[in-house]
């Protein structure tokens, strides 16, 4: 069964992808983490605490919402939105943050480190660390640090230390590298709280496990609301955690088709150093980096390329190994959405339903908007609205209301100058 294959806690391989390609120093650390995961995810007391905090802290279950207006407008399949944007801290990321932090605490770890790009994962990590009373250090590329200052501010308010990473391209990849180095320096007291279904074993299975609550809820909710399983599941794919979350519980139901949407950025072009997109499934090659084997956007020499996307959360050159496996066996179809399509979809969903999807999630919307009219009214699409879109103010406002927003910021700057 696919669900078993993708929860391969033994080796962490999914087909040829996955694994645990870490310096020897980290091998015992990863093994201990895997063992702890295996122990706790079958431990009643742990599961009870997780369930309790899922409910009372994160706010689960998150709603499954029928997009009536969008459905009518597109005139095809019935569209449902799984609103992970209503999770505490505004995105699905906290599902695996909470789970990992609970394990780390039981393992006696005192300190949690994390990487973050846009800041969503860092924010969720900082929140659960505040809640669980653990020290928290978040690595962030200096460029991201500058452009995501509000999230830096929030993380700091939560008591986290945010480290500006000045190496490399000063973006997410450099933050991951810095976090890995921190883990190498502090292998025993520190838990690296990795933010997606990437990284060395056991992260992909562990995060899949903690995210799978999403699909489990959808199963019950869609049965209640529509009396049948969805025909299609659609999710954006950065590392793959929100997609795995939505897909996992349905993997063994062959009638449920699945689509992953990557960042098409400004176009599927690239040179030997940089992509204008982050569509790993389109032009990535098998590789090993940051601790796991998967597809990476890389050149012929194996150098990882920089990527580009309007959504920071999808702007990453690697992708989760389970995702690649699911593509290879034909279980999940992959496509991509361009930045301008994403902004248009963001707007359409906001106006039609009164919901702002995160720019990441808006990639899924693009595909839903394309698919729905082709399908019949009996068919159901569920897409994962993995986060809420108000986090993207500083990206969206300058594009959609440039002058007003600039005037507002200028005024704020003047006030602060005083």
């Amino acid at each position: 069964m696919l669900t078993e294959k993708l929860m391969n806690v033994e080796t962490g391989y999914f087909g040829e992808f996955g694994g645990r390609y870490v310096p020897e120093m980290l091998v015992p650390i990863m093994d201990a983490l895997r063992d702890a995961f295996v122990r706790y995810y079958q431990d009643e007391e742990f599961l009870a605490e997780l369930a309790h905090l899922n409910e009372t802290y994160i706010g689960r279950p998150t709603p499954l919402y029928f997009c009536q207006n969008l459905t009518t407008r597109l005139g095809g399949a019935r569209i449902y939105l799984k609103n992970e944007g209503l999770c505490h801290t505004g995105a699905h990321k906290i599902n695996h943050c909470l789970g990992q932090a609970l394990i780390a605490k039981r393992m006696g770890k005192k300190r949690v480190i994390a990487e973050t790009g846009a800041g969503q994962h860092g924010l969720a990590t900082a929140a659960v660390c505040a809640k669980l009373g653990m020290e928290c250090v978040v690595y962030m590329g200096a460029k991201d640090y500058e452009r995501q200052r509000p999230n830096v501010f929030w993380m700091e308010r939560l008591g986290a230390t945010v480290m500006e990473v000045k190496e490399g391209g000063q973006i997410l990849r450099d933050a991951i590298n810095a976090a890995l180095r921190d883990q190498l320096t502090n292998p025993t007291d520190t838990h690296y709280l990795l933010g997606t279904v990437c990284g060395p074993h056991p992260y992909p299975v562990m995060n899949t496990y903690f995210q799978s609550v999403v699909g489990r809820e959808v199963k019950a909710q869609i049965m209640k609301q529509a009396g049948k399983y969805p025909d299609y599941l659609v999710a954006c794919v950065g590392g793959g955690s929100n997609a795995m979350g939505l897909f996992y519980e349905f993997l063994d139901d062959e009638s449920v088709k699945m689509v992953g949407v990557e960042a098409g950025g400004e176009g599927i072009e690239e040179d030997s150093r940089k992509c204008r997109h982050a569509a790993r499934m389109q032009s990535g090659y098998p590789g090993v980096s940051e601790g796991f084997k998967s597809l990476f956007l890389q050149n012929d020499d194996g150098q990882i390329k920089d990527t580009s996307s309007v959504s920071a959360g999808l702007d990453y050159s690697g992708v989760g190994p389970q995702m690649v496996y699911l593509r290879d066996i034909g279980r999940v179809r992959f496509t991509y959405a361009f930045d301008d399509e994403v902004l248009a979809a963001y707007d359409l969903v906001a106006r039609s339903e009164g919901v702002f999807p995160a720019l990441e999630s808006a990639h899924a919307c693009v595909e839903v908007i394309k698919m729905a009219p082709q399908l019949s009214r009996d068919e159901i699409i569920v897409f994962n609205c993995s986060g809420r879109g108000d986090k993207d103010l500083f990206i969206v406002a300058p594009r959609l209301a440039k002058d007003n927003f600039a005037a507002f910021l200028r005024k704020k700057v003047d006030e602060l100058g005083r």
Partner: protein
Amino acid sequence: MKNQQIKIMSHLVAGYPSLAESEKIALAMAGAGVSYIEIQIPFSDPVADGPTIAAANRHALDRGTSVNDCFELMTRLKERVSIPLLFMSYYNILFRHGVDAFCARAAAAGCWGLIVPDIPFDEEPGNGYLAACAKWGLNPILVISPITPPDRLRAIGEMAKGFVYCVSGFGITGQERNVSDETRDYLARVRQHISQPLALGFGISSQDQIVAAAEVADIVVIGSKIINLYNQGSETEGLKNISDFLQIS
């Protein structure tokens, strides 16, 4: 206090600051009497390296240093020095090239051994990397750390060729460390399981440390210190700095 006993492996990043300079640096090292030279093929995501070496990786890539350039550098150096030359890089460089093809080319270029920190010996079923090394006569230098458990030390001891690279403490390259009692105990523990020579590395930055390290290890690894020495002053001064530092031993 020249000490002929002390074996040193010194490190450079191919293409930092240029391929031509890398060659000169290697020759200076050989001239200073080191026993091994570790030539790092630059990689975009050098997770096991500290800031100094990571920056050198990036610089080399920004200048367009290719894997092919590194093979050619190896070939040229092998013609002029006789000590063992090693390639150090990350697994993706080998994997993308094809592990077998990579090993073949490395061997053909005269490479003596490989250091690839992110491929644990037991990672891939019937580890193709170790097999390829064996096939092409390369020494796969395995790395261990103070927290490597006994069963893994034993396994490494059975598989290792050439020598075993012991990380001297928690952490990444470029942080200062003394040779402490802990390090002494650590190497003693390792020797219970591993009979190959032991190289001690990661963070050695003074000549005193080299001498101290040499008391417990067979080979002393000098990494980011070399780049720091090179970076102090002009090109010629840099080369001289490296020479002077290494000649203590």
